[in-house]
């Protein structure tokens, strides 16, 4: 079997090693980085084409024993199903586009591109592995390059932001690791007590542990679920654990922000979807009210706070909180349908599928937004809307695609954001009825802050605080990634089922194999 996924992870890693060893020559470094991430993108596209859309299970699986001791067996096993497919595609796509977008990063370019490569390795690993321990390794591996990207190439407040990002998310992943070990040991106890199951005595495999973990005691499930959930929602992020995000996004260089918002925060919600809920449904069920409360607060709070921002990038960062709140709301809608019918769980998983689709949509859209903020910063020297104004005439290409991104993000039909938003509202009604009227208010607030920002930066008379003789439109390497993304956004806005059907098939298969009876 052709090790597609492993190669996809390996090539950026080789790229990382090669780049670290190379001198800091921009001309050379950027080509090398583009080549290695380009190979991954090609492999990812090949995966998209060769994926068997009729089969909902794990595909292209690979499994190699890594640590072979009796008490601590660790297997490197990867695979991709409909849940992971959009995320994997997003990862290889955004990583490549970020390399193109960063075509002119002169400062320590070899290390910069190396860090981008390393981030890609970590993110791809998180989305594909099916082993708890390796999952944790990749999860932590993402943290390090991103820390350095913010610390070295960020804006003036970067030291504070990078430190905050690192400590905050690292602390949360330690809680997550503890929860993994709790699962590991509880699994061992459970298997020892039920010898008839014929399962290995020790295992870190999600596929093995999750088979029995829904039957663990409810107190254990509650505690461990809270641990996992905490680890994941800090990354997402969800109110009140979100404050690292505006700082980190604002102070990161544009490439870093794109990866951070497009991929890194998806790891959190991906973890909830892939691990926390199928492994511990009783735990999720017990705190369902809190989940939905946090989701609704995040949606409205994030949107409202965005409106107060004068820094375009900070506004976009805060809007991510709101949109990731929608992801959590969709998840919560599914958790509400969980019911324990005499030992076996039943669930309507459509909310989970919708959440995954919203993650995909948000990843595509937010990348365009951060890129446009980056171009504005790069060409005008400021992102403060009070100083901007009248960019439309001088930067028509940027303005067009920035507006396209803003419109996609506010849920304009014909683009992928609308489909995701509409589905989220559908599942919300399914579980919560007419309370939908509360979170749906976000569509108005969102329009408010995006259009207000457009009015103040792109439209209006030329600002007297800018020197328009020196401002020219975006360079090719800045606009091409935005165009590519907008095209993909429109395609999936018109034929969303192409991505949604495999997701919903895979979600019901994955949940069905652990939880019990599942309504797709």
């Amino acid at each position, binding site marked *: 079997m052709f090790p597609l996924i492993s190669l996809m992870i390996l090539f950026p890693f080789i790229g990382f090693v090669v780049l670290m060893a190379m001198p800091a020559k921009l001309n050379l470094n950027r080509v090398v980085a583009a080549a290695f991430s380009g190979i991954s993108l090609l492999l990812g596209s090949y995966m998209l084409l060769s994926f068997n859309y009729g089969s909902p299970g794990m595909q292209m699986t690979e499994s190699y024993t890594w640590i072979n001791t009796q008490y601590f067996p660790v297997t490197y096993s990867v695979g991709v199903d409909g849940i992971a497919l959009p995320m994997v595609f997003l990862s290889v796509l955004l990583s490549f586009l970020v390399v193109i977008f960063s075509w002119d990063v002169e400062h320590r370019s070899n290390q910069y591109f190396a860090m981008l490569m390393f981030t890609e390795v970590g993110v791809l690993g998180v989305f594909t592995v099916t082993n708890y321990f390796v999952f944790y390794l990749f999860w932590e591996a993402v943290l390090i390059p991103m820390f350095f990207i913010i610390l070295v190439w960020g804006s003036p407040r970067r030291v504070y932001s990078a430190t905050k990002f690192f400590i905050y998310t690292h602390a949360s992943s330690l809680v997550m690791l503890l929860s993994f070990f709790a699962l590991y040991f509880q699994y061992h106890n459970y298997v020892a007590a039920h010898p008839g199951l014929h399962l290995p005595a020790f295992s870190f495999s999600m596929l093995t542990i999750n088979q029995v973990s829904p039957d663990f005691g409810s107190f254990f499930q509650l505690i461990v679920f809270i641990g996992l959930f905490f680890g994941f929602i800090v990354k997402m992020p969800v109110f009140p654990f979100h404050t690292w995000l505006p700082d980190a996004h604002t102070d990161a260089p544009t490439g870093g922000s794109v990866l951070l918002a497009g991929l890194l925060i998806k790891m959190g919600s991906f973890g909830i979807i892939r691990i926390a809920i199928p492994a511990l449904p009783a735990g999720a069920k017990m705190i369902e009210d809190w989940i939905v409360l946090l989701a609704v607060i995040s949606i409205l709070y994030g949107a409202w706070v965005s409106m107060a921002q004068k820094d375009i990038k900070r506004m976009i960062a805060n809007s991510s909180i709101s949109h990731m709140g929608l992801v959590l709301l969709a998840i919560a809608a599914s958790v509400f349908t969980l019911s324990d019918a005499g030992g076996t769980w039943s669930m309507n998983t459509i909310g989970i599928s919708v959440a995954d689709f919203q993650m995909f949509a948000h990843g595509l859209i937010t990348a365009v937004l951060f890129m446009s903020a980056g171009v504005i910063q790069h060409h005008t020297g400021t992102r403060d809307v009070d100083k901007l104004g009248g960019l439309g*005439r001088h930067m028509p290409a940027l303005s067009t695609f920035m507006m396209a991104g803003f419109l996609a993000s506010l849920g304009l039909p014909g683009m992928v954001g609308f489909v995701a938003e509409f589905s989220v509202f559908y599942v919300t009604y399914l579980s919560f009825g007419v309370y939908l009227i509360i979170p749906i208010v976000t569509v108005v607030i969102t329009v408010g802050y995006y259009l207000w920002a457009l009015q103040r930066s792109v*439209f209006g008379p030329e600002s007297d605080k800018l020197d328009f003789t020196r401002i020219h439109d975006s360079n090719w390497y800045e606009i091409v990634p935005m165009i590519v993304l907008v095209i993909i956004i429109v395609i999936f806005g018109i034929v969303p089922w192409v991505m949604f059907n495999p997701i919903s098939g895979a979600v019901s298969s994955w949940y069905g194999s652990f939880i019990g009876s599942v309504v797709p």
Partner: protein
Amino acid sequence: MLFFEFVGNGSGIYPAAYQQQIQFLNLGSVRGTAVSLNLGIYVDWLTVVMLAAISFVSMLIVIYSVGYMHGEGRRRKRYFGVISMFVGSMLGLVVANSLLELYIFWELVGLGSYLLIGFWYEKPSAARAAKKAFVVTRFGDMFLLFGIVLLLNIGDRTLSYAQLFSASSIGSLNSSGLLTIATLAIFGGAMGKSAQFPLHDWLVDAMEGPTPVSAMIHGATMVNAGVYLVARMYPLFTQTPVSSLFVSFIGAFSALFAASMALGTYDIKRVLAFSTISQLGYMFMALGAGAYILGSVGSPYVTGGSPDYSLGYSAGMFHLVNQAIFKALLFLAAGSVMHSLGGIQDMRQMGALRSKLKITSITMLFGAFSLAGIIPFSGFFSKDATLQAAFDGISYSWIFAVIWLFGVAAAFLTALYIFRLWFMTFAGNSRVPHDVHVHESPPVMTAPLVILAVLSLVVGFSVLGVAGFAMAVHYPVTFPAGTIVSGTPYTVFRGVFGLLYDPFTYLSLALAFAGLFIAYIIWYRERSLDAFLSRPVPHGIQHVLAERYYFPQAYDKIGLWLGYGIARGLDFFDRKVVDGFINGVGSVFTDVSQRIRKSETGLVQNYASVIVAAVVVIVAVLLLYHGMGV
């Protein structure tokens, strides 16, 4: 456009709707019912009439734009591109076969209006007006989206018209008990798009766009979407009397409210903008009244009995078509006036233009006659029918008496304000500044005017009034056999002159002529109003009208407070409280580590004493454990 029209006409001949669909999204299933959303095309007579009106009027406006936008240079590319998208979205909206698809195009129409109103985006007022149009209509769309999600959930889990309006689906929608909320929510969307009170204010500011754009938005496309939506959802509105009454009331109130404001402004385009709100109000009034009557007297799904047509439905749609024609005509004529005056919009700087702008003044007079509802112009036939529909409702609910009075009063004001506009612009003494060279517009602009003027004259009687129109565009009603229907909730075909036997025809005609006459006295003979207006009460009224009842200020205040004020508060909370707490936790750790660092003194004696102390403690603990038998 023409292609669509051919498709529309070709298939409209066949009563069977033209159906074809492609997959959009499958949202799983609920209790065994698969929830699949598809996109497709649905054509019936309602669609055909909308297609014809939209595409024909839009075509004339685009031709006119060639002349009007002549001086814009390279930006014309953007103008014509966006306007094509705009018209295309509107056509998509009417051929959609499901509510979801309608919503998709609905929002794209909103985007088109945003881009067109903000066409001169370097003007801050234009950028602000564009934002206002989008945000206010989006506020209505929020309710529409809510209504759509509601309908998807409470019925047979479908949004396609064919299935949504089937008898079984209507039955389950009714039994859910939420249909009234759903229809009210849907009307919320229509209120935003069609600028009905209290979401009317954006349409007035939308005058910041080029004049052909105003003609497009007001005449052919955007604002009609709301009326079309209510007409399309008629099977649901006929089930919910509360919603229908609400629709009718809001419509009648908007008709009167906007007509009164039209008297207070001197901006030629704004008068027409208020007039649009008012005329759309008539359509909603008729549609709501028709639905209410149908809901009260019979179910359209009972088989057997005699087939009849809802007057309110046909009257509302007929008025939509006529409004599309005469409102486009009025706007284009106003644009022609502005073009010839070099952009002056204030009627106080016009006057006596009749001799210099012959074609414009005559065509605009045709539009004014039609708008005021003077026989035999098309507006007469349709406006009279809308009032008739409201009057019929009195038999079923006394509130329709109020609604009808609103409508009648608005009819009088309509004649008053539109002839005020005409006389101030074209008659009396010239108040044009001396440095302006007045010239008639080029033929590419006047030709559409002439065509529209002819249409506004002939469309009314050539289809034999609303009765003839209803032969094609109607909402079929089947009463249970033996039902005795009081009043006339359906059209009775009495020939084109049947109207002449109706006393109310003369009432509305008399009101229209009264309005015309008063306007003639005041603004043609120029009997001075100054003395009258300088008295405190009339002056106050005039001021309130000119300030649009202070709605814009109130909305700005509310918007600023709700949006930015709360946002600032939350932002402060975010930075100081939530983030402050996190930073506090961080600094506690730093603090503690600072203290611990102080214990690292480097003196061996200190370390040794700590070690000794620790050993003592450990031994003590172990002994204790041992002693307790652990």
